[in-house]
């Protein structure tokens, strides 16, 4: 079907995607496309209040509605010890509320009925009486004296504080600040937003009453970890749980956590003995499932008289919502935020973080982000631009002066990271060249003279992705390795299965290309399967840009294992010593006589038909890869904006993105990932906002209030690349899905701040909307 189908599809080939066919025909298999015989439908009743005590729940009228099979309340769940469940951050979360509701949209009851329409009708007939309590909607509110105690059910919980966490060295940082010629401060709020994949979350739970086997089709980015969590929560034996993650209509972190709906649907199927489908509507998705960010950050950068950075100090308050359910490695309470020194050689740093409960939805997911690296990158890049403006140094020059140099790699950062590789000056130079920075700077000056408001923003971000290694990185104790199992069939075609789960990233193509490169079987001959825990090897899943760094490495390693066995078989077939064989992609040949050769297909056939004496049959293997370090993708983004003084409207004139994600396996797919991330970065910078009124009502519960950019608003992107291979990854690859969302918000906002800097404006919190820009200009006396 494709003009490139004949290509071998090794590393670096932009072959067209193998998974496209079914999607183009409308034959994808997303969660809501699954229908099982006898399947029932579930609708969830949610709290209209942010904070209220439940006085009573009356389900009689609902239970009497046509088609209703059951009405489930927290009380019923409590009888089965399922009213609460553990979170991924060691807290607990209500499955169905029993005592209080703690955020608007919280799950209170569920109706199971023959059809979706009947379930929703009956849901609306449930009567709940509430005693409304005052709501807490920010960390400041949570700290205030006399603030209502949100988690009054937790033993020993006296206030709304969740955690205090520190990184770096307080003493050396203080000392460095004391010597600083200049200290630049930025206080900024990275507001709450939501990943909002086009497909919402849902499941079809099918507990077989005969065998007790629970098959749960679920929108999950991490099906294996979810299976283990389910086993722990429900007490079902793990071999009797099968989680299947079908085609996912995007995820972006939103589909990592376990949501109460999954648990209730599974319990209902178990009790009723029929499959139960639950599909969220968009409002439910936006108000109750994994939000992102909501960090209030203050950063201080100490600089000496020559413009060299001396130290960084950051404090942040994290708004975690009603339950601490951040999906993140358990050692790190604020995710990987301590990467905040970024691309700069800052000798010392000190970071403090405090987390607070509020009457808002829980979540704290890594929205296209490696566990809070987005917040870190935003803070440092905004701070650096502000410092440059304040010091009167060009933004690019100030960065150049302070970059970690390529010869410092591997670089030990002040907060304990070991950067694997990178050439920051080079990526910056490529980006500046592509933008035509010097020309554009002159253009800006000329336009400003004419009274125009225009500017350039730069961000030179560093990511840290590909968790683990397992000793430091775990999710509820599960080490963050990942896996690949490769089976080569007698005809030389192969099946690759992994512990990850694509949500649109093109795994069926990219990972087949790794096999094509390493084992010589053309990519078109390698089927890739993920997401079924009964068939795929255990893995931690796809998020935090870890699939290529971890499962991609596992795929390379298992291919190499099979190649080693293939060499032995080839030596038998060719009657030549193993060390006399040369490997060329797809075949072994005898050194010096290239026509004495056996292709990998011939070897595969022999693996089942004509083996050397004593060798196990088959050509199959599995590899569990625990990475020795994280990978550190980076890049420089440069943005030009024009601001309309009259309306405050910002227009992005140009967006140049130079990414270095190491070796690119399928450059077309990588470029597609970058486009998508740059659009989401644009969305976060200018549009997307989940906010709350004083009573805790969520503003942003639909696509009219929660603005996603269309093709009309989204800028056109100009991309470029440099390549610094990861020295420890078997293919030199680093992961890329998130770099553009991590790096671009600061670039966009820096451009606006640069444009407004002649008026003395140093910060506008995201999203940078026209009204905020307009008000900022007015506050500085611009009246035009």
């Amino acid at each position, binding site marked *: *079907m*494709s*003009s490139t189908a004949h290509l071998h599809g090794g590393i670096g080939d932009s072959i*067209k*995607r193998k*998974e*496209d*066919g*079914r*999607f*183009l*025909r*409308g*034959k*994808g298999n*997303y969660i*809501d*496309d699954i*229908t099982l015989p006898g399947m029932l439908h579930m609708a969830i009743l949610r709290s209209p209040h942010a904070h209220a005590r439940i006085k009573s729940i009356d389900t009689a009228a609902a239970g009497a509605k046509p088609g209703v099979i059951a009405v489930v309340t927290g009380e019923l769940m409590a009888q089965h010890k399922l009213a609460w469940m553990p979170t991924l951050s060691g807290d607990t979360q209500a499955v169905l509320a029993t005592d209080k509701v703690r955020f608007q949209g919280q799950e209170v009851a569920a109706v199971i009925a023959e059809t*979706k*329409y009947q379930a929703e009708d009956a849901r609306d007939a449930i009567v709940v009486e509430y005693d409304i309590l005052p709501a807490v909607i920010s960390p400041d509110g949570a700290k205030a004296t006399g603030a209502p105690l949100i988690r009054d059910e937790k033993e020993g919980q006296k206030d709304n504080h969740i955690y205090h966490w520190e990184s770096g060295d307080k003493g050396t940082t203080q000392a460095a600040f004391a010597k600083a010629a200049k200290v630049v401060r930025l206080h900024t709020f990275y507001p709450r937003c939501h*990943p*909002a*994949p*086009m*497909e*919402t979350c849902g499941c079809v739970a099918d507990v077989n009453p005969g065998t007790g086997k629970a098959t749960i089709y679920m929108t999950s980015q991490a099906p294996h970890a979810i299976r283990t969590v389910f086993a722990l929560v429900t007490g079902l034996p793990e071999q009797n749980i099968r989680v299947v993650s079908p*085609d*996912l*209509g*995007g995820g*972006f972190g939103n589909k990592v956590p376990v949501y109460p709906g999954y648990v209730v649907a599974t319990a209902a199927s178990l009790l009723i003995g029929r499959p139960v489908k639950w599909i969220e*509507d*968009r409002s439910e998705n936006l108000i109750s499932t994994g939000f992102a960010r909501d960090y209030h950050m203050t950063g201080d950068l100490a600089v000496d008289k020559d413009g060299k950075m001396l130290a960084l100090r950051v404090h942040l308050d994290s708004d975690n919502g009603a339950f601490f359910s951040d999906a993140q490695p358990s050692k790190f309470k604020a995710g990987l935020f301590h990467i905040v020194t970024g691309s700069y050689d800052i000798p010392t740093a000190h970071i403090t973080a405090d987390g607070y409960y509020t009457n808002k939805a829980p979540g704290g997911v890594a929205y296209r982000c490696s566990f809070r690296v987005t917040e870190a990158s935003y803070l440092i890049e905004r701070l650096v631009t502000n410092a440059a403006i304040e010091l009167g140094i060009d933004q690019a020059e100030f960065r150049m002066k302070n970059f970690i140099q390529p010869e410092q790699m591997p670089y030990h950062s002040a907060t304990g990271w070991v950067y694997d590789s990178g050439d920051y000056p080079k990526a910056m130079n490529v980006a500046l060249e592509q933008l035509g920075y010097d020309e554009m700077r002159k253009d800006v000056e000329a336009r400003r003279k004419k009274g125009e408001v225009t500017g350039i923003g730069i961000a030179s971000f560093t990511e840290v992705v590909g968790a683990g290694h397992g000793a430091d990185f775990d999710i509820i104790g599960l080490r963050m390795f990942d896996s690949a199992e490769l089976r080569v069939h007698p005809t030389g075609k192969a099946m690759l299965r992994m512990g990850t789960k694509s*949500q*649109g*990233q*093109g795994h069926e193509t990219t990972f087949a290309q790794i096999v094509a490169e390493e084992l010589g079987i053309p990519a078109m001959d390698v089927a890739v399967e993920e997401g079924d825990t009964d068939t795929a090897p255990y893995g931690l899943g796809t998020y935090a840009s870890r699939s290529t760094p971890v499962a991609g490495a596992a795929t390379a390693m298992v291919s190499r294992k099979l190649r080693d066995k293939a060499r032995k078989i080839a030596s038998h077939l060719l009657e030549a010593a193993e060390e006399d064989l040369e490997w060329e992609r797809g075949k072994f040949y005898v050194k010096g006589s290239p026509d004495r050769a056996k292709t990998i297909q011939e070897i595969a056939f022999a693996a089942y038909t004509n083996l050397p004496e004593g060798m196990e049959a088959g050509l199959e293997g599995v590899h569990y890869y625990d990475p020795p370090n994280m990978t550190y993708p980076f890049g420089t983004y440069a943005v030009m904006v024009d601001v309309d003084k009259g309306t405050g409207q910002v227009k992005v004139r140009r967006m140049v993105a130079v990414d270095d994600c190491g070796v690119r396996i399928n450059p*077309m*797919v990588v*470029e*597609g*990932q970058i*486009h*998508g*991330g*740059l*659009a*989401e970065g644009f969305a976060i910078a200018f549009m997307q906002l989940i906010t709350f009124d004083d009573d805790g009502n969520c503003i942003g519960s*639909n*696509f*009219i209030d929660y603005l*996603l950019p*269309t*093709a*009309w608003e*989204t800028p*056109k*992107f100009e991309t470029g690349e440099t390549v610094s291979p990861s020295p420890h990854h078997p293919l030199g690859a680093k992961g890329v899905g998130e770099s553009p969302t991590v790096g671009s918000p600061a670039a966009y906002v820096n451009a606006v701040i640069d444009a407004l800097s002649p008026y003395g404006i140093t910060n506008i919190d995201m999203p940078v909307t026209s009204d905020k820009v307009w008000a900022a200009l007015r506050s500085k006396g611009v009246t035009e």
Partner: protein
Amino acid sequence: MKVTMRINGTERGGDVEPRVLLVDFLRTNLLLTGTHVGCDTSGCGACTVLLDGEPVKSCTMLAVQVEGRDIKTVEGLLQGGALSPIQVGFHEEHGLQCGFCTPGMMMVGSALLERNPDPTDEQIRWAISGNLCRCTGYMNIVKAIKHAAKMNQEAAKAGSHAEAVPAGGGE
């Protein structure tokens, strides 16, 4: 209520409550699950189908409103069992990632090309501005629709206008 309509060239019918949304009728009654639901409040375009050749959001119409009319869904895009130019365009230009928005995007794209066989980038961006995509940043969707336009033009030049082939047979 009985309802009959022509879907992808074939007469289809059913018995539905008057309140049933067109998208639910397509997906649940007719098992045409290629049409997706991203919001059910007219905000995303994932449910876009063609009603008498015009894109409509099938989450915002009742099945009974379509009585006697003509609907085309993604399942009706194939031409003689082969991918149509709009489908080829999305494949060749990497215009889809998760694929969830893709049916709606392709329906809007194909309707645009009926009206305007040679659209500019801006015209494409405007035409698809009722459809959200979270994965692609739209860059390659624009290219995909241009690719299809070019294929149509080349086919027209070669004398066998691709769009003259009646739709259908794709279910």
